[in-house]
């Protein structure tokens, strides 16, 4: 297939998405729209984790930390000074926190950039560690961010967190950022830099022999991933309108990790599909946490039950379909057409 055709098909797909969102905005109830929004944000987060883990082979569990950074920075920038005056009850905010303000686009970008800067900073020592240590160290990093959020009330309002964050993150913002994330990561991975990242994943020693400054490229991947994790966190804060340190527990990273593994480590299209599927399932499974009525017997709901179901599902994937939905393959227009023409024949 020629490049021109692919570009046209991509544009058609984007237009179709736009049409769908427009229809959804007019016809769906608030609950369904919320799920659509969560889908977009979860895809952003999972794409960025797949870049780090699936394509570069860096087992990082720090996503919740980067999300927290993006969420707090963005919230501080979009709340009005009056709002912050009322909010910071424990201790008054720092002056610059109190007065900082920016439009939503700038606030989300700032959230991403600060997350990226901190990602680069912690990546500097951590990315020299071996694989297993990196997982533990990044997990520790995310926990440190959470503890800091609890203990710097003049910046984060401590355990109380923020309430009443302006709800700018509508379908258009979320899916717009989702497309930007997808575009940037696709272009990055299609460039020779993408080949180098995959080379590091496949055989680090051979990559070094080919002149690859492995540390530099790991840092690049980690930083770009942190940026989009920060963006995702920023959007999530504005979508939910409340944040506090408890929100950024390890379970948040775990949800994202599950999407990446289910979709396929090293497959962007797999991540998109799993992002849709798992977000819907996570919402749908809330049912199991509510009391259910079977043949007149009242079964009590078990809080946290859906995480149990999901952990089991993840174990199943790892046991029976290690490569996830797509493995390292991608869905192309070409492969789609092939499926359809085969279906017709």
């Amino acid at each position, binding site marked *: 297939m020629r490049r021109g055709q692919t570009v046209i098909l991509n544009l058609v797909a984007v237009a179709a998405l736009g049409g769908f969102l427009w229809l959804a905005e007019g016809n769906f109830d608030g609950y369904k729209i919320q799920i659509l929004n969560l889908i977009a944000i979860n895809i952003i987060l999972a794409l960025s984790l797949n870049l780090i883990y699936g394509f570069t082979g860096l087992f990082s569990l720090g996503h919740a930390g980067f999300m927290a950074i993006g969420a707090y920075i963005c919230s501080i920038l979009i709340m009005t000074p009056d709002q912050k005056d009322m909010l910071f009850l424990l201790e008054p905010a720092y002056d610059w926190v109190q007065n900082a303000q920016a439009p939503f686009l700038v606030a989300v970008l700032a959230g991403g950039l600060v997350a990226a800067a901190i990602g680069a900073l912690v990546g500097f020592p951590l990315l020299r560690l071996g694989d297993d240590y990196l997982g533990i160290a990044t997990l520790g990093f995310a926990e440190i961010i959470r503890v800091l959020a609890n203990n710097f009330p003049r910046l984060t309002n401590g355990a109380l967190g923020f309430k009443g964050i302006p709800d700018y993150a509508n379908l258009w913002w979320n899916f717009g950022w989702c497309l930007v994330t997808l575009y940037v990561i696709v*272009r*990055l991975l299609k*460039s020779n*830099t993408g*080949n180098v990242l995959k080379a590091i994943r*496949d*055989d680090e020693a*051979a990559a*070094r022999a*080919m002149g690859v400054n492995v540390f530099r490229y790991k840092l690049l991947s980690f930083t770009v991933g942190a940026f989009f994790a920060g963006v995702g966190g920023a959007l999530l804060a504005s979508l939910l309108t409340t944040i506090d340190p408890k929100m950024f527990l390890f379970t948040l990273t775990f949800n994202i990790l599950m999407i990446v593994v289910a979709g396929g480590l090293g497959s962007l299209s797999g991540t998109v599909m799993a992002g849709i599927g798992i977000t819907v399932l996570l919402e749908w499974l809330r049912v199991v946490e509510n009391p259910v009525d079977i043949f007149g017997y009242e079964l009590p709901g078990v809080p946290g039950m859906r995480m149990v179901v999901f952990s089991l599902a993840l174990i199943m994937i790892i046991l029976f379909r290690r490569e996830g939905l797509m493995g390292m393959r991608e869905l192309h227009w070409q492969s789609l057409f092939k499926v359809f023409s085969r279906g017709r024949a």
Partner: protein
Amino acid sequence: MAGDVILATSDVTMRFGGLAAVTDLSLAVRRGTIAGLIGPNGAGKTTCFNMITGFYKPTMGTIVFDGQEVTGLPPHKVCKAGIARTFQNIRLFGNETVLENVMIGRHLRQKTSWIDAVLFTPGYLREDKAMRAHCLELLAAVGLADLADEQASSLAYGAQRRLEIARALATEPSFLLLDEPAAGMNPQESEDLMGFVRTIRQDFDLTILLIEHDMKVVMGICEHIWVLDYGVTIAEGAPEAIRRDPKVILAYLGEEGGLHA
């Protein structure tokens, strides 16, 4: 400048704990030649390659490449200086295509970055196109042009060896290290390999140092040979002299029953 020394190691020693894998190695490889490094199993040959390419930092001694000291430089800097290598146990990027494997070798010589790729700058598009064309040419030179879009791990053994060489050539080396390029090949394939090594030396203006157990290959293409035994250099010279050297014959007799050439 043909004939001057391109790679010189002086009294290079590598110890692993109590084990002296290589002792006082002094190579002087002349520019434009094909040289050989031989010796029984475990003699320390691969360890020499690992020291030259920066994977191991020698316990003692210095390595000078093209007038520049490279002792202890990290592998990527050694590669940039112009030394490329293949591995004894082939190490391709298995999940990538044949073409992508070669392109990874080009990244050192690239001027545009991934940001240009995101922005679709004309400079990026031009360079990317030229790079693909160049890599396809390299694949053609090793006879793999038809397999450019195959996954590297799906190639047959001999093709994987050639891809590893194409990938090394993509870094534009002036010095190429081949670790047992004929391993696992039948006599006909080994014969072809000898012609192939001579051709790339000519076409890419290379100096080549190779490790090889197949004496027919070693004696057939090497102009100068160093022999290691237990890490010690026991002989050095032209193939004819090496073949008759009693110390060499003894070392090989102890190991695998003499030199078959």
